[in-house]
C-alpha cells in the first residue's frame, strides 16, 4: 500500500523525531499531542533539526521551509480521515497506548495501517482492543530517529503479511533500513545489545576495571563505536533499566544488570539527558 499521508501520535522527542524523518522524505505528516505545550516543544524540536541541517549546508533555507511545512501540529483528530499510516509514540504504558490506539483507530480510514513505536511492550498485547489488529504492527525506531537508520518491523500475532509488507515499504520510502523481526521480548537490537552490556557490568566487577578503562578499551578495539558506559548514558539509564527488566523477566539472569544502573537512577542520574550518568555532562 502506498502511503500519501502519515500521522504520529505523541509529540515527545521520539514522536517529533519520527515526524521529522517522514517530512524529510517529502511526505505530509500530522503530529498530534493532547498537551499544547508538548506539541509546541515537539514542533520546535523538528524546526531545530532542520535549522541544523541548513547550518551544516545539507539543505537550503528554502528546502528546510518546504519540508517543515509538511508537518502539521494537531491537538485533535482533525484531518485524520485520509491518513494511510499512523505511528503511535506515546509513553511506554500499556493501558495508555491501548486507549490512544482505540481512539486513533476510530478516526482513521478503515484501510489505514496503525503502528506502535514501543521498544519494550509486546505488540500483540498493545493490539488488544483494536477492531482490526490485522492492520497493526510495531515500527521500532531507534533514538535519535533523525540519525539512526534502522527500523525494526515487528508483526504481532494478528498482523497480516500485507501489513508487514506495507510497513517494510513505508520504512524504505522514508529512507530508513527495515529489518523484519519476529515478536519477542526486547525485539532484536536491544536484546542483543543488553546481553553485551550486562556481561560488561559483570566483567567490571570480576576483573576490577573502571568504566573509563572499559570504554577506552572497547573504543580502541573497534568492536563498537563508543564504550558501553557512554552508550548507556546516551540511551538513557532509565530506558536501559526498563528494557533490561523486561529482558530479565523473559530470558533470565544473563540480563541481570546487578544493580549497576539502579543506584545511579536513584540518585537522579539518568544519563546524558539528565546531565549525569556514569559520566557527567555539561551544556
Amino acid at each position, binding site marked *: 500500500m502506498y502511503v500519501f499521508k502519515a500521522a504520529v501520535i505523541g509529540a515527545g522527542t521520539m514522536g517529533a523525531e519520527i515526524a521529522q524523518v517522514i517530512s524529510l522524505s517529502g511526505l505530509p505528516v500530522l503530529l498530534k499531542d493532547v498537551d499544547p505545550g508538548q506539541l509546541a516543544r515537539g514542533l520546535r524540536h523538528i524546526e531545530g533539526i532542520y535549522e541544523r541541517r541548513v547550518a551544516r549546508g545539507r539543505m537550503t533555507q528554502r528546502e528546510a521551509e518546504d519540508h517543515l511545512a509538511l508537518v502539521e501540529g494537531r491537538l485533535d483528530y482533525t484531518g485524520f480521515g485520509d491518513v494511510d499510516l499512523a505511528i503511535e509514540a506515546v509513553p511506554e504504558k500499556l493501558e495508555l497506548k491501548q486507549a490512544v490506539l482505540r481512539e486513533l483507530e476510530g478516526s482513521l480510514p478503515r484501510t489505514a495501517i496503525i503502528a506502535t513505536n514501543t521498544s519494550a511492550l509486546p505488540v500483540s498485547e498493545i493490539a488488544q482492543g483494536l477492531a482490526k489488529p490485522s492492520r497493526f504492527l510495531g515500527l521500532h525506531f531507534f533514538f535519535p530517529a533523525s540519525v539512526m537508520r534502522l527500523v525494526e518491523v515487528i508483526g504481532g500475532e494478528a498482523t497480516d503479511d500485507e501489513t508487514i509488507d506495507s510497513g517494510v515499504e513505508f520504512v524504505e520510502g522514508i529512507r530508513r533500513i527495515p529489518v523484519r523481526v519476529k515478536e519477542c521480548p526486547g525485539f*532484536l*537490537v536491544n536484546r542483543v545489545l543488553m546481553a553485551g552490556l550486562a556481561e560488561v557490568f559483570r*566483567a567490571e566487577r570480576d576483573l576490577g576495571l573502571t568504566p573509563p578503562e572499559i570504554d577506552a578499551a572497547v573504543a580502541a578495539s573497534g568492536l563498537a563505536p563508543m564504550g558501553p558506559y557512554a552508550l548507556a548514558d546516551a540511551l538513557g539509564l532509565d530506558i536501559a533499566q526498563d528494557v533490561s527488566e523486561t529482558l530479565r523477566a523473559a530470558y533470565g539472569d*544473563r540480563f541481570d544488570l546487578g544493580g549497576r544502573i539502579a543506584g545511579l537512577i536513584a540518585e537522579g542520574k539518568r544519563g546524558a539527558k539528565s546531565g549525569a550518568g556514569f559520566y557527567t555532562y555539561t551544556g
Partner: protein
Amino acid sequence: MANENEQELLDRFRYAVLLEAVRCLDEGVSSAREIDIAMRAGAGLPEGPLAAADQAGLDVVLGRLQELERRWGERFAPPRRLQDLVAAGRTGVAAGRGFLEY
C-alpha cells in the same frame, strides 16, 4: 589496565553479543543477514556479530567459548548450531560458509 584483563573483557562483551545473536537466529527472530544489518544500523557496530565470528573462524570461536565457559560459567556454553557448523566444516569466511555464505 593489564592487557590480559582487557582482552578478557573484550571477549566477554564480544561473545555475549554473539551468543544472544545466535539465540535470536535459533528462535527465528530474524535471518542471519538481517541480524547483522540490524546490529550495524541499529547499534552502530562496525561489523555484524555473525559476520565477525565467521571472519575470526568458527573453530577459533568455538575454542574460545569453551575456555570462557570453563572460567565464567555455562552462559558461555557454545550453542548447538555453532558446534554443528564446525563439525560440518563450515568454519566461516575461509571455508566459504559459516553463519553466512561467502
